């Protein structure tokens, strides 16, 4: 009977529920009762084990996973951004409100669509602009043709163009070379299928092109240093667009037609350059003034130009990447030599040049990685999955946002995660940079739901 009472006291002792009198009573009993003493020891052992049970944490943020399911509070303003969102939990781009970032791959995709749609709209606007100036350009071309037919006019045109070239300086370079349209210049422009480049690249038959023009460097492909990942991709297109718009605007204002009257063209080859117009021309080919383009006119790059040119330079946003880029580049190249790729926060859709990684960009990469402490989510090539960093773990979800994989290890706050890229739809590579600069790449095999160190 006494032991029964003591048992309760021993239980309450574990919960710090005994008063001093009860404590003394219990100790007095266990000094005389070895069985109760043993029982008490086992209870203490059990309590210690229970207290040391691991405080498990969710594999990814529960709140993030339900954000898109949380209704707006009635009559209250919607959330802008949660005040205490840990940055590592919400690895999306800065333009999206953190509160709405993680849970909605569809939202991200919509954002991507909007970006694409915006680019398409810009292209359309440019096309309309060019189409509206089509008449002016035709007149310009006709004027050139007439000048070419008239030696007098040709001479004065040469003077005029020469002065224009001098005054325009470096800006006229692409125009000049475009007007010259050397085979090399054309061939080094894989993106010349789109209107913007074509506008600067008259399809003069090769036999009629001047040696002088052919000898010119490809002005459409400036070999200036590439500034950053973003601008590196977009700068050439921006330049081409800028030049195109400047040309058209200048023409519409009656300025000398720089785009078509280059010194080379006016020096004697203008008749060939400004050939008879084809009435069947479409607006998209409006500057292929030499006539109907030939199917076999597609120029082949020369070796020298191949070395200088990268596929990025042809990306114009309008026509998209040249088809030949896609199969060669991509995360497959990443996986062959993971150590070559520094911590770059890859943008969705960004692919590697085949076999080269991002050469010559190590300094820029560091800048990029430093700026992008929180990597943006990276979609698989088919968009069936996307990877992101949440709470310092790499998490992969399917297109519906369902968790497919979460890295077992949670990296420390001072360790930076870089999402490198996908290998097809079921392989993903990421890299962790430690404060001492050391890096470790990991390959996530979704088919086996595991990750393997790559170095």
């Amino acid at each position, binding site marked *: 009977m006494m032991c029964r009472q003591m048992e*309760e006291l021993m*239980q*309450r002792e*574990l*919960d710090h*529920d005994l008063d001093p009198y009860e404590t003394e009573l219990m100790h007095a009993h266990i000094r005389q009762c070895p*069985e109760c003493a*043993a*029982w008490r*020891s*086992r*209870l203490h*052992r*059990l*309590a210690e*084990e*229970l*207290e*040391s*049970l*691991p*405080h*498990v*944490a*969710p*594999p990814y*943020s*529960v*709140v993030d*996973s*339900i*954000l898109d*399911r*949380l*209704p*707006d*509070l009635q*009559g*209250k*303003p*919607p*959330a*802008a*951004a*949660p*005040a*205490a*969102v*840990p940055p590592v939990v919400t690895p999306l781009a800065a333009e999206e409100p953190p*509160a709405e970032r993680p849970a909605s791959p569809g939202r991200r995709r919509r954002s991507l669509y909007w970006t694409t749609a915006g680019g398409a709209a810009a292209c359309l606007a440019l096309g309309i602009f060019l189409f509206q100036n089509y008449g002016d350009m035709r007149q310009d071309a006709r004027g050139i043709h007439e000048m070419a037919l008239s030696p007098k006019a040709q001479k004065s045109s040469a003077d005029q163009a020469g002065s224009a070239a001098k005054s325009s300086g470096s800006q006229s370079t692409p125009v000049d070379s475009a007007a010259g349209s050397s085979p090399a210049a054309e061939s080094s422009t894989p993106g010349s299928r789109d209107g913007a480049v074509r506008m600067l690249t008259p399809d003069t038959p090769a036999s009629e092109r001047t040696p002088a023009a052919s000898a010119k460097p490809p002005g459409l492909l400036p070999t200036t240093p590439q500034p950053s990942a973003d601008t590196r991709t977009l700068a050439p297109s921006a330049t081409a667009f800028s030049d195109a718009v400047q040309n058209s605007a200048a023409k519409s204002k009656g300025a000398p037609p720089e785009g078509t009257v280059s010194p080379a063209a006016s020096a004697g080859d203008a008749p060939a350059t400004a050939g008879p117009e084809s009435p069947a021309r479409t607006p998209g080919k409006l500057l292929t003034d030499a006539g109907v383009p030939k199917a076999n006119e597609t120029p082949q790059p020369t070796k020298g130009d191949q070395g200088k040119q990268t596929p990025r330079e042809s990306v114009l946003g309008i026509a998209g990447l040249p088809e030949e880029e896609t199969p060669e580049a991509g995360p497959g190249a990443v996986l062959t030599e993971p150590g070559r790729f520094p911590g770059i926060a890859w943008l969705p859709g960004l692919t590697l040049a085949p076999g080269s990684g991002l050469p010559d960009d190590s300094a820029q990469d560091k800048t990029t990685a430093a700026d992008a402490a929180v990597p943006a989510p990276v979609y698989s090539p088919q968009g069936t999955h996307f990877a992101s960093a949440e709470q310092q773990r790499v998490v992969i979800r399917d297109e519906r946002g369902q*968790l497919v994989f979460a890295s077992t290890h949670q990296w420390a706050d001072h360790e930076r995660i870089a999402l490198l890229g996908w290998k097809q739809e079921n392989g993903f590579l990421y890299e962790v940079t430690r404060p001492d600069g050391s890096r470790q790449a990991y390959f996530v095999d979704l088919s086996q739901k595991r990750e393997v160190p790559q170095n």
Partner: protein
Amino acid sequence: MVAPELIKAAQTGDRDALITLLREIESHVYRTAYYLLGNQEDAMDASQEALIRIYTRIETYEEKAMFKTWVQRIVTNICIDKFRKTKPSVSIEEHELVFHASDNVEQSVLSSYLATDIRRAIEQLPDHHRTVVVLRYLQQFSYHEIAESLNLPLNTVKSYLFRARKQLQTLLQDYQKGGVRG
């Protein structure tokens, strides 16, 4: 410990404050769900449901109760509903295990229990016993807080907890001896 100001802001409709509040409690909610349900997937489901319920019912919280016990009441109710749906109901009386002194007390005392055995033993407990143990040891709740969370009388909480400890002792001894499991 969630700041009272944050709770008040959340109750007034500040969605940012409410989401911040959810972030502060999500690990506590998940921990309870994990030990009650025994696996990550069910725990995530229950945690999501609990947080959504907290989000939508935050205005019903009254300060006379502690916020943490209010939260734990929500998550334990969801978990109990879940494992009632998935497991056959077992009454506490059926599960009642009587403590028997071990034949080899010293050996039992000296050897430590494996964490996996402890988790498995917890899963074998009746629902309410398991809930009391989880709140006591994973949330460090007092008798009073457990009673408030589960809406149970204080003595019932004590009774459940004491019985649960006994049962755990017995189950763990069985595991150590390679005896009956489950």
